């Protein structure tokens, strides 16, 4: 971090130093850490020429809670619970990522009922996450109504999940070796009701925001991310797919029971903010398709393969496992030294890589476009800092 701070200082000195040219003087503006549009405590140092953004340097660490270090002092059952607080909008998928890594490393086989329920919940959570993103995108661009619509429908889905899980946000539902609890008897019925409720609402979303001229003007041809840059920067999820690269772990390396479901991976064309927007709205439809297909044939079985105690021991070695959250690929890297605690636990979080795409996207564009482009990245800051 010290390197970054000193380089920032040098940059500022360069810009404000002996610039005696008659052109506009370049200057720096801090955006954040306390800013309504940064979705948390992200700090962006903007080098500006008038209203044009010449450089955009993210400065991190304002919510670094040392989750990876704490994990080294916890057993594998407890590590799971910290991951809800990383990307809190895809908490079940985060739990699943750790559970998947531990299960693969320790050789625990889970039955198909557990996998099906995990997949259904992951897709429901993806819908919930995109609903919130949709509302907040509208709010960032100056429209408050989408926020009310998005939150309204998110509460309906939250109720459905809360009945089974017992929590609204940090769900802690998936464990290594199974689930915390079996699904509620009402669950299947209520999810069907929700999908019946939400399909027409999604068309309403299109009428309200997608086909809105102002939104199109603000998002189209703004923040273009070429597929080459997206791959170079390690972008994943809707950011990568918006740039036209059809890479989705659910399709390309299926986990859970995604191979049983028939769904499409929406892909953008030129990689502007509009493509990322469209990909996410379309993903909500596809997620509902997946849930509908899996809902009717949840196989019977236990929700926990066996009563696991906290002493899961993993053979010595390095293990990596990854899955697709609402924002991209979350990878879990475990270094084990035969104890019940990890020697090192590392998370490859999707938001971290997606964040760095901001500079190539926005170079030379206006500050106002930066807000829209950043909103289309759908960043969750605690996942970046961990």
């Amino acid at each position, binding site marked *: 971090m010290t390197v970054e701070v000193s380089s920032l200082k040098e940059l500022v000195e360069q810009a404000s130093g002996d610039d005696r040219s008659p052109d506009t003087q370049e200057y720096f503006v801090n955006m954040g*850490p*306390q*800013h*309504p549009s940064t979705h*948390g*405590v992200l700090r962006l140092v903007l080098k500006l020429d008038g209203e044009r953004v010449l450089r955009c340097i993210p400065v991190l*660490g*304002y*919510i*670094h*809670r*040392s*989750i990876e*270090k*704490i994990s*080294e*002092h916890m057993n594998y059952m407890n590590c799971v*619970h*910290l991951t*809800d*607080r990383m990307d*809190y*909008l895809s908490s079940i998928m985060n739990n699943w990522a750790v559970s998947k890594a531990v299960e693969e490393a320790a050789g625990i086989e889970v039955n198909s009922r557990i996998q099906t329920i995990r997949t259904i919940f992951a897709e429901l959570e993806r819908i919930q996450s995109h609903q*919130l993103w949709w*509302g*907040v995108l509208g709010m960032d661009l100056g429209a408050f109504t989408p*926020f*009310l619509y998005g*939150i*309204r429908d*998110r*509460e309906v889905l939250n109720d459905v999940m809360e009945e089974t899980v017992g929590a*609204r*946000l*940090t769900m802690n539902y998936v464990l290594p070796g199974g689930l915390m609890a079996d699904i509620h008897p009402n669950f299947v019925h209520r999810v069907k009701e929700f999908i019946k409720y939400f399909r027409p609402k999604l068309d309403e979303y299109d009428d309200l925001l997608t086909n809105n001229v102002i939104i199109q003007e603000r998002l189209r041809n703004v923040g273009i991310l070429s597929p080459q840059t997206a791959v170079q920067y390690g972008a994943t999820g809707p950011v990568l797919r918006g740039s036209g690269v059809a890479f989705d772990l659910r399709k390309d390396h299926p986990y859970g029971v995604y191979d049983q479901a028939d769904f499409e991976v929406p892909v953008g064309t030129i990689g502007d903010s509009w493509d990322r927007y469209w990909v996410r709205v379309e993903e909500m439809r596809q997620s509902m398709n997946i849930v509908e297909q899996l809902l009717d044939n949840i196989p019977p079985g236990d929700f926990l393969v066996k009563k696991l105690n906290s002493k899961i021991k993993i053979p010595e070695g390095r293990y990596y496992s990854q899955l697709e959250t609402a924002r991209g690929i979350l990878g879990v890297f475990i270094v084990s030294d035969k104890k019940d605690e990890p020697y090192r636990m590392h998370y490859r979080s999707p938001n971290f890589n997606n964040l760095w795409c901001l500079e190539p996207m926005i170079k030379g564009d206006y500050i106002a476009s930066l807000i829209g482009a950043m909103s289309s990245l759908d960043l969750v*800051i*605690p996942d970046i800092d961990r």
Partner: protein
Amino acid sequence: MGIVTDKLPGALEKVPGGNVLVTRFDEIINWARASSLWPLTFGTSCCAIEMLMATGGPRHDLARFGAEVARPSPRQADLLILAGTIVKRMAPRLRTLYEQMAEPRYVIATGACTISGGPFIYHSYTTVRGADEIIPVDVYVPGCPPRPEQLFHGLLTLQKMIKEGETIREPGVRRKPVISALPEGITLEDIQGEMKELLVKENVVDVQHAVDKLKWPSGLNESSSGDSGANERGAGDGA
């Protein structure tokens, strides 16, 4: 005068040509402060989704308590809802934000992290163990994250504190911080019913109750009775 004066703390006297409101400055200022808290949009992590977004949404609707005008600038806000973990790097910024807010300012600490460090209390080299190590906190709302109803409970607790608390003679002197935890076994219906009851009660202020609540300086309380209250008060100040 209609609807507005119904809620004003004080006694409304009918005199020829209009009404005279008999009240105290402390009483009416605290009433105004408690009823229009403007929160700062400050969210560091998970709690922000529940505290700022879900409560601002249509189901929970913070506007019912007059606290929905979220301001991004600390200069315009007087309520700091601490939503999310405070880490060492953020701590000086939080202190600056708090100091930039205009007096009187109130702080609600929501979630386990801002109360004690929460799940990050052990083995963490960055987490601040409780936001009250940096700034004074008025109300603690426990939970990880707390439900929106729990924030409302905390907000109502803060409103009660403000109404009873500060006086002009002793500015800044308030009641000690409280924990606004929901009792165990309470259900959502209970909270909603209680809030409904409270809102109805707030709508209909018993004027006689308000008069009884006004504590005049010594000597005046006995002599003042009914209509001549205002005159007595004036004479008392002159003496």
